[in-house]
């Protein structure tokens, strides 16, 4: 996941792309908030007369194999698909920023322990660390979100540590120290708020990635469970219908995931660029 972020194009995305991405994300958030008001059906309303219905005025995006309206489910799915990554990033950034700051502030053995822990987590490629936790604690959205939160912790800790190291060398830190302020107070009141700018750009890119990972876990059956309308789970449930020639049940949630992640990446790269420029 780090390589991905590191190799993103240094060229800033075109303003048009960013505008579209922002507008689209705004739309998705609005859909998540207003789902009960704008959705034409209830998300779990089964109607076998409409099984695998194509696009029609009654079902603008078609219906799945149980005849549930796909537009409705995608709108409701925006809720789990956005809240999941939000919680996992909250967990990961709380732990990661704390560990990273601690490592950069104390150096020495604390730094060594944190980096050894990070190394062990990094030795599990891809989602395998999360898969292990799910195998032990059972499938479900809560386990998946917490496990992903833990899995993203070292990435954020590493990034925070590198930013904090640069920040700790600046004179204002010494100034506070000379005034007799405690280390904890300096970190919480001054160091962390000053790093927030660079962290936000990074977190936006990670949000897209987290959404992707969470959807993948749901697709594998480890995350959201039926009858949830999580986008990853919708793709999983729609898969058997592909051979019958009904593509909408997989394409609609699949497109939703892809578009949201692309939008987050476009905005995140842009933000990261701007933060990077201001930092130097």
């Amino acid at each position: 996941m780090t390589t991905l972020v590191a190799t993103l194009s240094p060229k800033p995305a075109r303003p048009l792309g960013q505008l579209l991405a922002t507008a689209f994300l705004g739309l998705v958030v609005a859909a998540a908030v207003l789902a009960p008001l704008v959705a034409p059906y209830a998300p779990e309303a089964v109607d076998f007369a409409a099984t695998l219905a194509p696009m029609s005025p009654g079902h603008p995006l078609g219906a799945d194999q149980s005849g549930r309206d796909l537009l409705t489910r995608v709108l409701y799915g925006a809720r789990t698909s956005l809240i999941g990554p939000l919680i996992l990033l909250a967990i990961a950034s709380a732990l990661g920023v704390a560990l990273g700051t601690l490592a950069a502030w104390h150096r020495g053995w604390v730094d060594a322990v944190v980096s050894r822990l990070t190394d062990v987590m990094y030795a599990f490629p891809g989602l395998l660390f999360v898969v292990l936790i799910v195998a032990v604690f059972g499938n479900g959205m809560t386990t998946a979100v917490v496990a992903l939160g833990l899995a993203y912790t070292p990435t954020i800790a590493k990034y925070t540590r590198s930013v904090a190291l640069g920040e700790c060398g600046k004179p204002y830190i010494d100034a506070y120290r000379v005034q007799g302020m405690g280390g904890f107070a300096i970190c919480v009141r001054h160091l962390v708020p000053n790093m927030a700018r660079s962290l936000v750009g990074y977190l936006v890119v990670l949000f897209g990635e987290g959404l992707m990972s969470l959807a993948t876990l749901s697709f594998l059956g480890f995350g959201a469970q039926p009858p949830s309308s999580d986008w990853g789970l919708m793709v999983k449930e729609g898969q058997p219908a592909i051979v019958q020639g009904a593509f909408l049940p997989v394409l609609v949630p699949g497109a939703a995931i892809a578009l949201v992640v692309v939008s987050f990446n476009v905005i995140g790269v842009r933000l990261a660029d701007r933060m990077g420029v201001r930092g130097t």
Partner: protein
Amino acid sequence: MVRKLAGLVATLLATSFVIFAASYAAPGDPVTFLAGGKENLTPEYLAAIRAQYHLDDPFLVQYGRWLGDAVTGDLGRSTQYHDQVSDLMAARLPSTLALVAYASVLFVVFGIALGVLAAVRGGRTDSAVVAGTTFATSVPAFVTATVLISLFGVQLGWFPVMGGGSLWHLTLPAVTLALGALAIISRVTRQSMIEQRELDHVSVARAGGLSERLIVVRHVFRGALGPIVTMCGLVTAGMLAGTVTVETAFGLNGIGSLLVNAINTHDFPVTQAVLLLMVAAYIAVTTAVELLHPLIDPRVRSRA
């Protein structure tokens, strides 16, 4: 060299310990957790599990014995299939390895080609490659898989949708697996080529009247090769984990889908074994790449 190998062993020990100790983190008695489903809770079966995991010994002794057994190929019995785990894995490993090999060929050839093209042509080609790779990394593999099945499998009927075995069956899965890797490799290639092109010896070659093709092949690409090869190795190493999603999406019988089935049926011995294999392979390949890097790129040796 020795330090790197020691690091390799230490990381392997640490990860295997995490995988082993995970069964103790589970709520409840480890015996019932390891036994899997409720139908397995017979006294004889529990006794067999106790013996396999040496559950009556002290914790660290248990770990040592389990690791010793695993290294000698005794990975216990599956609670789901009641077969030796090593037999199950041996039966499924060839198709997974074929998939990874196929995908590796695809991403190395097309990834490097796209990267070189973007760096040499510049302008529109460059923007198109950068935009395309940004998009490719933003689409999760399972979505790519379902789109490819819908389009090429069902709509056009060019590729079989089910089953496996032949190269033809593996094409769509390999393309899916290769796509994300391809994006990373083309980016690294492009970046590395652009950096090399700015160097003095390239300007000298150009001033000497060498044709642009020769400059690119002999000087720019040769110099850019180090990071490209390293990244190819790292990406290939991570691919074994990527087969989890791709094999599930395409219904292939490999190691990856074995892992998913094992978790969904609470078959912990199989889960442990597959995780151990994937993590060990990943660590071994990444270490090998680190050791090979100075051989490909002598400048790394002199810098060290």
